[in-house]
C-alpha cells in the first residue's frame, strides 16, 4: 500500500472526534435497537395473557416510540458504515478483508431487524394478538446476534486475530478466528447487558417522573415496573461481568488497563486509585487502597500488574486522566444502579408491592441518565484506552485516517446533524406523550379496570 506513506502525515484528531461523536450518539439508539423490543414485548405479553388493557396500551405506545428511535438509529448506523470508509480508508483498505466479515454478518441481522420491526410496528391492526407478539421475537434475536457481530468487529480491533499479513497485504483470513477473537465473548456480553440497562432504566425513569408527579395509576406503575425489572435483573449481572472483564483486560490489553487504574510502573502490591487527576506522573485528589488492584487482578497482593512503562511514550494512550475517571464513573454508576435494583427487589420480596416513596423514585428518575453516562464512560475507556492504535499493536490510528481534507467540515456538519437527531429522538416521544395525556383524560382511568381477556390484543384499547 503506497498510500500509507502519504497517510502517515495525517492528523487523525478530527477523524477521531467525528468517529467518537457518531459512535457515542449511535450507541444509545443501538441500545434501544437491541433491547426495546424485549421490553415492549414483555408489556404486550402481560397485556395479552392477563387481558390487561394498561399493559397493552403501554406496549402500543412504546412501539410508536420504537418507530422513531429505530428510524433515527438506522440512519445513524448508516453514518457509521460510511465513516468506516470516509474516515478510515487506511484501516479498511488493508484489513477490510478481515474486519469486513463480522460487519457482513451484522448486515443480515440489520435486514432481519428492519423487516420485523416493520411487521411489528405496522401490524398491530391486522395481526391476531399472539401472531403480533411472535412477530417481535425475531427483532429480539436479531438484536442480540447483531450486537454480537458488530461488537465482534470492535473486539477484533482490540484483539486482532485470524489473518496473515505479508508485505502489508492480507494474504490469508480465517473468518471464524476473526469473529470469535479473544475479546468477543466478554465485550459482547458487556454491551448486551449495557443495552438492557440503558433501555430499561431510561424507560423506567420516564414513568418514575410520572409517579413522582402523582400519577399513581396502574398504567404508570406498570410502565415503571416492567422496564425497571428487566434492567434490575441485568444490573447485578453487569457488575459481575465488569469484574471478570477487568481481569481479561489486565492480561490482554495491559497498557489500557494501566491507564484505567493509574499504574505507572510494572510491579506487585499495586494500589487501587479511586478518583484522582494525573498531573506530571503524580495523582492528586485521589484515594488509594494499598495493594487492592493487585488483589482484584490476581486475588493476591503479590500479583504483578503491568504498568504503562512497559511501552515507549508514543505508544501510550493519551488523556490518562479521562480514561481513569471514565472507568471510575462507569464502575460507580454501575454500583449505584445495582443498589437501586436491589432496594426495589428487597421491598418487593418482603412486601409484594412496588416501592414508590420519593426517596426511591427520585434516584430512579435519574437512573436512565446514569445508565447512559455509565455506558458512554465505558466506551471512552475502551476506545481512548486503545489509542494510539486503531488495531491494537498492529496499526496506528494515524496510518488509518483519511488523507482527504474535508474532515473538519464534516465533523462540524455531523455535530450539527446529531444535534437535530437528538432533538428528534427526545422531542418526538415528548410530543407524543403530551398528546397522549392531553387527548384522553378518561383513558388512564379506564385502564385501571382490566377488561376481559381475549381479543384485546388485536383490537387495541387505544380509543380516540
Amino acid at each position, binding site marked *: 500500500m503506497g498510500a500509507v506513506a502519504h497517510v502517515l502525515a495525517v492528523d487523525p484528531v478530527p477523524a477521531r472526534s467525528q468517529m467518537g461523536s457518531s459512535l457515542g450518539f449511535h450507541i444509545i439508539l443501538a441500545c434501544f435497537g437491541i433491547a426495546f423490543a424485549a421490553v415492549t414485548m414483555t408489556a404486550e405479553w402481560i397485556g395479552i395473557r392477563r387481558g390487561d388493557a394498561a399493559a397493552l396500551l403501554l406496549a402500543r405506545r412504546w412501539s410508536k416510540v420504537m418507530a422513531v428511535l429505530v428510524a433515527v438509529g438506522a440512519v445513524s448506523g448508516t453514518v457509521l458504515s460510511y465513516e468506516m470508509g470516509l474516515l478510515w480508508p487506511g484501516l479498511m483498505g488493508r484489513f*477490510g478483508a478481515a474486519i469486513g466479515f463480522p460487519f457482513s454478518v451484522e448486515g443480515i441481522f*440489520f435486514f432481519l431487524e428492519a423487516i420485523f420491526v416493520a411487521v411489528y410496528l405496522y401490524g398491530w391492526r391486522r395481526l391476531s394478538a399472539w401472531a403480533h407478539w411472535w412477530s417481535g421475537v425475531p427483532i429480539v434475536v436479531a438484536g442480540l446476534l447483531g450486537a454480537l457481530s458488530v461488537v465482534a468487529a470492535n473486539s477484533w480491533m482490540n484483539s486482532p486475530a485470524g489473518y496473515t499479513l505479508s508485505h502489508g497485504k492480507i494474504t490469508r483470513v480465517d473468518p471464524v478466528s476473526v469473529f470469535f477473537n479473544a475479546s468477543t465473548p466478554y465485550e459482547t456480553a458487556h454491551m448486551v447487558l449495557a443495552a438492557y440497562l440503558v433501555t430499561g432504566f431510561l424507560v423506567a425513569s420516564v414513568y418514575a417522573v410520572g409517579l413522582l408527579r402523582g400519577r399513581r395509576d396502574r398504567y404508570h406503575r406498570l410502565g415503571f415496573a416492567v422496564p425497571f425489572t428487566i434492567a434490575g435483573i441485568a444490573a447485578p449481572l453487569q457488575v459481575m461481568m465488569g469484574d471478570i472483564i477487568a481481569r481479561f483486560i489486565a492480561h490482554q490489553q495491559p497498557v489500557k488497563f494501566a491507564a484505567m487504574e493509574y499504574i505507572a510502573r510494572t510491579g506487585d502490591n499495586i494500589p487501587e486509585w479511586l478518583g484522582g487527576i494525573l498531573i506530571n506522573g503524580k495523582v492528586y485528589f485521589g484515594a488509594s487502597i494499598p495493594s487492592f488492584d493487585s488483589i482484584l487482578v490476581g486475588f493476591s497482593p503479590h500479583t504483578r500488574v503491568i504498568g504503562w512503562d512497559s511501552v515507549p511514550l508514543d505508544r501510550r494512550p493519551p488523556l490518562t486522566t479521562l480514561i481513569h475517571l471514565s472507568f471510575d464513573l462507569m464502575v460507580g454508576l454501575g454500583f449505584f444502579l445495582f443498589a437501586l435494583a436491589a432496594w426495589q427487589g428487597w421491598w418487593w420480596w418482603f412486601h409484594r408491592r412496588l416501592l414508590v416513596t420519593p426517596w426511591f423514585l427520585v434516584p430512579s428518575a435519574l437512573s436512565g441518565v446514569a445508565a447512559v453516562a455509565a455506558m458512554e464512560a465505558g466506551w471512552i475507556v475502551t476506545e481512548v484506552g486503545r489509542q494510539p492504535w486503531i488495531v491494537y499493536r498492529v496499526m496506528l490510528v494515524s496510518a488509518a485516517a483519511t488523507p482527504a481534507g474535508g474532515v473538519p467540515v464534516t465533523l462540524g456538519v455531523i455535530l450539527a446533524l446529531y444535534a437535530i437527531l437528538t432533538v428528534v429522538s427526545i422531542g418526538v416521544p415528548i410530543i407524543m406523550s403530551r398528546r397522549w395525556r392531553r387527548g384522553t383524560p*378518561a383513558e388512564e382511568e379506564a385502564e385501571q379496570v382490566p377488561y376481559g381477556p381475549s381479543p384485546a390484543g388485536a383490537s387495541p384499547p387505544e380509543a380516540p
Partner: protein
Amino acid sequence: MSPSPEAIAAAAILVVVIAAYALFGGADFGGGIWDLLAGGPRRGAAPRELIDESITPVWEANHVWLVFVLVLLWTAFPPAFAAIFTALFVPLSLSLLGIVLRGTGFAFRHTAQQLRTQQLSGAAFAASSLITPFFMGTVIGAVATGQVPVHPAGSVLAAWTSPTAILTGFLFVAACAYISAVFLVLEARQRGHQDLVRYFSARATAAGLLTGALAGGTFTVLSGSAPHVFAGLTGIALPLVAVSIAAGVAVLGMLWLRWYHAMFLRATAAIAVATVVWGWGLAQYPYLFPTSLSLAAGSAPTASLAAEFFVVGLAVLLVAPGFALLYVMQQRRMLKAAETDADLRTAAHLGQALPARPAAAPAAPAPARTGMTTALVLAVLAIRAIRDAWRRR
C-alpha cells in the same frame, strides 16, 4: 492475471445487490421526488398520502441494501473501497447528508402536527431524495470513467465533476423517479384511486422518456470518457442493454394502453432498471476501476470471499423469506401506520391536518367507547367526502 472464480462471483453478487438497492431504495427516493413535486398542501395531499402509505412501512428494510453494498464492497474489494471513499469523499459525504436528512424527516413528519413543522420535515425528506441519488450517481460515474486513482492522496474533485459523472447523477435521479412512479401506479390502482392511477401513469411516462433520453446521453459521452465501459456496453453487455431498452419501451406501451398488470408492469420496469446496472457491471469486467485496478488485484483473499458467500447464503435463507413476508403483508395492506388517537383528532380538526389520514377510518373500535369512535369515523368519512367533492370541481 485473470481474476479467480471467487472474485468474479463476489463481483457478480455485488452488482446484483447494487441493482436491488437501485430498485428498492431507488423507488423510495423516487417517492420523495414525487412528494417534492406534488405541489401545494391541498393539491398535493392525495399523492403525498399514497406515497407515504406505500413507503413508510418498507423504507427501512429497503435502506439496508445500501449497508449491504458497503459491507460487501469493503470485505470483498478493500482497496477499491478505500480508494473510492478517499477520492470521492465529497459526493459520498453529501449523499450521506441526504440519507440523514431523509431519515430525520421521516421520523419527524408523522409526529409533527403543525402545518409549518410538517412542511419543514416534509421538505427535508423530499429534498434529500434528490441529493442522495444524484451524488450516488456521480460516484458511479466517477468509477466507470476510471477517474478514481488507486492510491488517492486526498479527495479528487475532477473525478466526480466530469460531464459523464454529472450526467450519471441526473440519470440516477430520473431513474428513481421513473421506477417509483410505475410502482405508485400499481399502489394507487390497488387502493382503487383511479385519479391517482392516471396521475402517476402520466408521470411515469414522462420520467421514463426523460430517463431514456438521459441514458442515451450518458451512453454517448461514455464513448469518449470511458472507452472501456463503452466497448463493454456495445460488446459483451449489449444483450443486457437491448433487454433494458426493450423493457423500457414495453413499460411505456403498457402505460399508454393502460394495461396495469400488477406483476408484469412491476417486473418489466424492474428489469429495465436492473439490466442497466448489470450491464454496467459486466461492461467493467475485468476491472474494478477501468483500467487501473483489476478484479484480480483488488479482491480480498479467497477465504474472505468464501466467508462472504456464506453470509450471502445465510441472507438468502433468512432475509429472503422475511422480505417476502413484508412485501406480501404490504401488498395485502396489512401494514398500517397504527393510527394514534392524535391522528384521529388531527383529522377531525381539519384545519391542521395536511395529509389527512382517511386510512384511520376503518379503525378497530375500542370496546370501551364505541360511540365516540363511531362519531370520529363518521367525521373522517364526511371530511373525506367533502374533500373528494371539492377536488372533483
